[in-house]
């Protein structure tokens, strides 16, 4: 594989490599939806933190379609899908010790979540 030439360094740094994908994928969720995080425990790579598994939150934003880290880490393709900004009440994650009005946001791939109550 070729070495990165010095004359390409500035352009590379200023451009980067977005994980956003142009595939037309229908979103399964919309802002306002209540979603529950699936209780996934893969032996492989995942961007789903343990503390959120099984917890319920509210979709606040559709971030668009992104390459799925969990498959891309293992040569299993991009599996493009929507990522959602999901809001959790701190008390739903940590119980009564958390401050009543505090919240936490995660960006969750569609594969990580299901409609609340299913």
């Amino acid at each position, binding site marked *: 594989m070729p070495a990165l030439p010095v004359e390409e360094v500035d352009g*590379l740094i200023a451009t980067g490599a977005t994980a956003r994908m142009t595939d037309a994928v229908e979103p399964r969720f919309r802002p306002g939806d209540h979603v529950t995080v699936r209780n996934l425990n893969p032996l492989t*790579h995942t961007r789903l933190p*343990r503390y959120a598994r099984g917890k319920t939150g509210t979709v606040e934003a559709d971030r668009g379609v992104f390459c799925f*880290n969990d498959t891309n880490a293992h040569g299993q393709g991009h599996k493009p899908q929507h990522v959602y900004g999901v809001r959790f009440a701190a008390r739903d994650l940590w119980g009564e010790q958390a401050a009543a009005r505090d919240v936490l946001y995660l960006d969750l791939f569609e594969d990580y979540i299901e409609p609340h109550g299913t």
Partner: protein
Amino acid sequence: MNGVHDLGGMHGMGPINPEPNEPVFHAPWERTVFGLFITTFAGGHFNVDEFRHAIERMDPAHYLRSPYYEHWLHAMESLLVQRGALTPDEIDGRMAQLAKEPA
């Protein structure tokens, strides 16, 4: 994987201790590791998800005790070896050779 890297919510990790006027790199080798990461990543030797997962597979005690750029060194070295760009024997041999020379 349910690894030690998944730290959110853990107790007992100690104080945060921000370093006043912290330099970007703390040692010359950290500079080199950072630069090598960017160049080998740009060279297509691995993607960022493979890189993160290689860090997650570090020995957990080593992960917690080592400086940050050692995580990067571990991931880069293991992926470059896995992809055949380097061999462990080459690295050992070069280390032995360099150890005899002044830095």
